């Protein structure tokens, strides 16, 4: 059975999505990768405003200790959520470098994509409204061109003027 162009494109799209999902989800992290990941998802609380692993203040009262605590949590086998929770309990919610994906923090993550979807919907609506608009009036006696003839002229105009 031969595929039509449309169904071919649809299947290609579905295949791409699966490949992307596999690439994204099948990652397996070692301990060093987890340390890097979690260390870059936490802030140093010395009010330098930097990510924990990027705090470069020698003699910082917090960053060295926090890094050791993080390494210890990973060695103990604590999972990511548990590790972050223990840091939140000890240093407060601002220690996490991004809002949580539960509770009100979820709103932070959803809003940009919700805005994007709303914008897309609005755009589609506007485009449809524009396309439904009646064409500009044509002077009496002029026959409008349509179909292949119009396309041919457009193609020719495009070729001659497209610089």
């Amino acid at each position, binding site marked *: 059975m031969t595929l039509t162009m449309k169904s071919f494109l649809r299947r290609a799209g579905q295949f791409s999505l699966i490949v*992307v999902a596999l690439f994204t989800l099948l990652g397996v992290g070692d301990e060093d990768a987890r340390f890097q990941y979690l260390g870059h998802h936490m802030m140093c609380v010395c009010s330098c*405003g930097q990510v924990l692993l990027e705090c470069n203040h*020698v003699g910082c009262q917090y960053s060295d200790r926090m890094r050791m605590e993080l390494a210890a949590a990973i060695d103990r086998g604590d999972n990511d959520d548990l590790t972050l929770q223990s840091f939140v309990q000890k240093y407060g919610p601002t220690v996490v470098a*991004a*809002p949580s994906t539960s509770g009100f923090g979820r709103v*932070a993550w959803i809003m940009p994509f919700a805005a994007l979807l709303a914008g897309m919907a609005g*755009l589609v609506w506007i485009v449809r409204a524009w396309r439904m608009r009646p064409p500009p009036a044509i002077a009496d006696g002029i026959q409008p061109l349509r179909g292949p003839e119009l396309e041919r002229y457009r193609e020719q105009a495009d070729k001659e003027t497209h*610089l």
Partner: protein
Amino acid sequence: MSQLSINALPQIGSFALLLALALAGYSFLVGLFALILGGRESDYLGETARRAGIAAFGAIVLASVALVTAAFTNDFSIAYIFHHSNRDLPGPYKFAVLWSGQEGSLLFWSLLLATYGFVLRLRYKTDARLFSHASVVIAAVQVFFLLLLNFAAHPFAVLAGGNIPADGSGLNPLLQYPEMVIHPPMLYLGYVGFTVPFAFAFGALVMKYPGEKWIHITRRWTMVTWGFLTIGIFLGAHWAYSVLGWGGYWGWDPVENASLMPWLMGTAFLHSVMMQEKRGMLKTWNMWLVFGTFFLSILGTFLTRSGIISSVHAFAQSSIGTWFLVFLLMIFITFGVFYILNFRYLRSEHKLESMLSRESSFLFNNLLFVIACFTVLWGTFFPVISEWVQGNKVTVGAPFYNNVAVPIALILLLLTAIGPLLAWRRTSFESLKRNFMWPAAGALSIGALMMILGVRPWKDIAYFYSLMAAMLAALVTFTVVSEFVRGGQVIQRHTGFSLPGSMLHLYHRNTRRYGGYIVHFGVAVVIIGILGTPFNREAEKEMGFGDKMNIGPYTLVCQSYTQDDNPNYGNEWAIINVFKGNEQITTMYPERREYKASSQPQTLPRIHETWGEDLFLVRDLYLVYEGRNQDTGRPIIKAHLNPMVPWIWIGLVIMIFGTITCLVPNAEPIRATVPVRVETVPAVGAGD
């Protein structure tokens, strides 16, 4: 200079600021009155308002000169000079004192606005009535800043108690870096400059200005302003990279975000305004975009100065946040009222004919820019919203933006590649396929090559983003090249020139279009620079004499440490020899300073660029002398190996070159050399 003349500086400055306020107030009120009144008599009134605006520029220049002179003459009776300067501060930094603190930077803002206003008022004959409207809008903004300077953040306030200290507290060490003399003026030229297109747009809205002439008038203002803002943002990133010593260049700090938001909105405006120029469409949208860009510039200033958002960059918390809030409300209400009154004048003249057209690509491009801007705004304000809703602040840092903004940026990059291939009105699918095929094949090849060479997108989402960004940047590059080649081939057919000559002619003939493509190419190069981030490496070690540290293919060997002293600071630096294999490739000198006036330390990283050594083509070896371990007393050296970063700065240069190209007038088209058959025309006698 005598003591008397030194003490006169606060008086001169204060008087100049009051005079400037009176003149700007006159320019605004009388200019407004003249516009309302209309008629020939009002032209004379309008002329006085214009001249008052020019005179206000003179007064603000005087105030600025007084403040800089106070810095150079060490007039520590002025509180601002005492807090931001000291006797041994080098000359260029004394000049930079003007924008290094709250009050001075507001004066600097006012000076730049007055300069823009001065140029605008001199060129009023282009369209006297439209320029009068724009002049009134600029005067209104000027009045706000002068009110602030005179009553809320006075740069010439003298120290309480009457005692003049022997020396000042000194300039923040982080600001004592050559780029800090350039970065803020560039950024401010960008922020302030967006007032001009807004003033023209608002003027056009108020007077229901027919046609698109206001867009032609403001096009160059907008391009120049956008260029300044771009330079300002990138210089800020380069300063962060070269001075802060954490090995990165963008931390998604609220103040960085404040500069990015008007840039995103301004970029959307620069694209969508083409639809209004060419097709008479998106008039309402453009009006709101230019308003949004101006509004976000002021909002950024509010963010920096109000203290509502925690930031390492923010100025001291003060009451001027309320002033800004009131001003933001006023401009929103004023603009909204005039929009409601006159929105019918902004109707589109044409309809969208096809989804596969340049118009629709601009629509999607604009949507993505605005959503990107919203995302940054949302992330910046979310800590405040969170505190308001649930009583505790949260941090919104790099992980949030990387996960939310990066996908949007990737789609934008895809549109940057596709957009130029689409014709106005409509494009056939066949035509798109024909033009898109080779660039797409090239981009896929780059992706495949990266995977063959070891990039594993399934290991980490950051690698996946990097691979996508590389492919899309390649797609943009190939599209730009194909556009040059296709256009060059058309010219070549008509003129018989060589292909490179034809491409050069093409470039001169439509500078705006091909300048825009160069900017796109610059963006692709910047993206290539950014996509190296997931491959960064770092190492840290206490290093005594002869100690070694390995990072990537390099071995760092500590040769020695040395110290120096000058009136401004004492410093200590490490001498590190860098080997690749057995070959010594360079010696680096990471430094640490201790500024005397402020007793603040500063690290000065050293960066060595390595070209053409491996897949990444170029990378930075970045060394920081972090100081000494408090327990052992041994020096600590931190090394970063950052692939691709230099491409970011190269991309900026390309973007600016493209922007300048867009500003150059088009060359005359050359005549075709194809012979044309000429028919004999009968002679016409005199008197016929």
